[in-house]
């Protein structure tokens, strides 16, 4: 297997190319631009036989993807932050029509103040849109999960659009070494695309028809049952991918939690920084570990409960704020998932890394220690935003 150094965005474009996408419709937005710019170049040089549609906005980009996917084309796009928000209404249409559009979201904070840098505000704003969503922590995972997304989304028992979340700049703009799979292996892994309900006048179908009150509820229930049942295919796909690549993926992943009493929970690229903090605290004699959420939707309830069942304290680190609500959106979901358990860890909520602000190893160490103190003092109803100046 060849190992090369490449910018995260370009590695993602290589994955889309290797999956033989038919259509890419996109609008440039920082920090996502390099992905679709590279795909435009590959289409122009003829290395990728696809249509590249440079539409005038993200709303049109997702709409064009909807159209191309509906006639049975393998469809890819990428966006970030404000662009994802502009797509918002069409995201719901895509998942409800069961169109397996594959999209890489380069996570970016939302205005105002205007920021092109990364956090998870954009993710949290679309968490209920019915797409399968997963997080990458490094360039290798961004490449791998993009390839897996096609196989998962297009499986006939799935047929859902898939988002692969990649942290803006921290992953999109770094050059990291990654293993490239052989084209032959990828072709064996991702079968030729055949959408079973493609628009075709010879075999008429209607997509997204009007849903009056007497059918809307049933349509939504059917969609929800279908989304929850995709986990089997997601797990199978990752198992097959492991055979191909040697790299394994799981809905919830753990680091040094076997004997841990306390764990930190993260999503995305900050997880790797957090691992260093865990190592450091362990060398100081603290029995701490790390729990990382890989699969965001469908939410891995069982895997999460299993991963944290022996912990006394779970410190959840959010990179977004749910304004006016339970402030950390992930912490809130974790609390909700753990509430029915007879015994469960205490959940402490921290928010940080907003708008591209770095969280260092030392900051994670401090946060974990603070979290342990708060849990001991049963101070669990509030949350803390870390490293805020002027308060």
């Amino acid at each position, binding site marked *: 297997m060849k190992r090369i150094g490449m910018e995260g965005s370009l590695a993602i474009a290589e994955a889309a190319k290797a999956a033989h996408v038919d259509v890419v419709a996109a*609008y*440039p937005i920082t920090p996502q*631009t390099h992905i679709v*710019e590279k795909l*435009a170049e590959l289409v122009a040089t003829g290395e990728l036989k696809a249509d590249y549609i*440079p539409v*005038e906005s993200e709303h049109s980009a997702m709409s064009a993807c909807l159209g191309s996917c509906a006639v049975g084309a393998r469809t890819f796009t990428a966006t970030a932050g*404000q662009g994802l928000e502009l797509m918002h209404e069409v995201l719901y249409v895509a998942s409800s029509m069961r169109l397996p559009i594959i999209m890489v979201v380069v996570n970016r904070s939302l205005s105002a103040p*205007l920021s092109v840098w990364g956090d998870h505000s954009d993710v949290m704003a679309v968490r209920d849109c019915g797409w399968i969503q997963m997080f990458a922590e490094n360039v290798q995972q961004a490449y791998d999960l993009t390839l897996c997304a096609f196989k998962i989304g297009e499986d006939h028992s799935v047929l859902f659009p898939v988002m692969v979340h990649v942290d803006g700049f921290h992953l999109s703009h770094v050059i990291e070494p990654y293993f490239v799979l052989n084209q032959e292996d990828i072709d064996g892994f991702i079968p030729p695309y055949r959408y079973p309900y493609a628009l075709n006048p010879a075999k008429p179908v209607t997509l997204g028809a009007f849903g009056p009150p007497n059918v809307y509820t049933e349509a939504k229930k059917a969609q929800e049952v279908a989304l929850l049942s995709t986990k089997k295919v997601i797990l199978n796909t990752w198992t097959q991918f492991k055979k191909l690549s040697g790299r394994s993926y799981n809905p919830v992943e753990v680091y040094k939690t076997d004997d841990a009493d306390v764990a930190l929970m993260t999503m995305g690229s900050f997880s790797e920084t957090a691992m260093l903090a865990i190592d450091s605290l362990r060398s100081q004699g603290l029995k701490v570990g790390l729990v990382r959420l890989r699969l965001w939707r469908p939410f891995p309830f069982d895997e999460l409960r299993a991963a944290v069942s022996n912990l006394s304290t779970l410190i959840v680190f959010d990179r977004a704020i749910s304004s006016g609500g339970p402030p950390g959106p992930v912490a809130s979901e974790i609390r909700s998932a753990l509430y029915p358990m007879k015994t469960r860890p205490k959940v402490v909520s921290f928010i940080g890394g907003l708008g591209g602000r770095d969280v260092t190893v030392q900051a994670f160490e401090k946060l974990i220690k603070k979290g342990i103190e708060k849990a001991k003092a049963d101070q669990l109803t509030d949350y803390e935003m870390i490293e805020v100046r002027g308060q």
Partner: protein
Amino acid sequence: MKKVYAYPKSLKRAPFHYCPGCGHSIVHRLVCEVIDEMNLQDKTIGIPPPGCSVFAYNYFDVDMAESAHGRGAAVATGAKRAFPDAIVFTYQGDGDLAAIGTAETIHAANRGEQITTIFVNNAVYGMTGGQMAPTTLVGQKTTTTPYGRDESLDGAPIKMSEILALVKGTVYIERVAVNSPDNIRKAKKAIRKAFQTQIYKLGFSMVEILSPCPTNWKMSPIESWQWVDREMTKVFPLGVIKDTTEKKDAD
């Protein structure tokens, strides 16, 4: 002694972040000169866009509210309707006005909103690094059209001034350029007239400004000035596209 040159009062003394040879700094200065000369600084509200001129509020010493990408004309509409004594202008690039924000622009113009739009056209998406814009010339190389824009796939350059001239609510639209001292003087005159149109409450006014982008055109500043004359003005001819201000005066 007669003072013949001064730094505009409404232009902050901040170093421009723009690339060498970029037209934005010239346009900023022209707008500020007009604001000063018409004594509008205390009642002007500007709406800057995402894009290269996203930091416009660092330079214009007037109230500014950043809009979401493309929504300048809608934000300006709200501001002007609720505060009719203010002089409201949008400052937009072609990625903003001619792409993501076409709907807002056309409908604000069609309603004849009493606002002024400064539309800076450099035939490329500048801030994201030189991708094809709807205004990109046929054959022009960009990062998303490495062999040149192909009209059969991507259409022809969109002429926003001509499109907006068809809309009844627009009263003054002129296309100018900032690639020579002569053109810069004409550009200032057009900006002045556009603000005057708003002061007289005649309707929607817009000045389209052809502006060099040496960085993304991969040219020297001088070559880019020449390219505006040689290539851009062939597709985007300079001059008054629509002017019904006289007629409106008579009404």
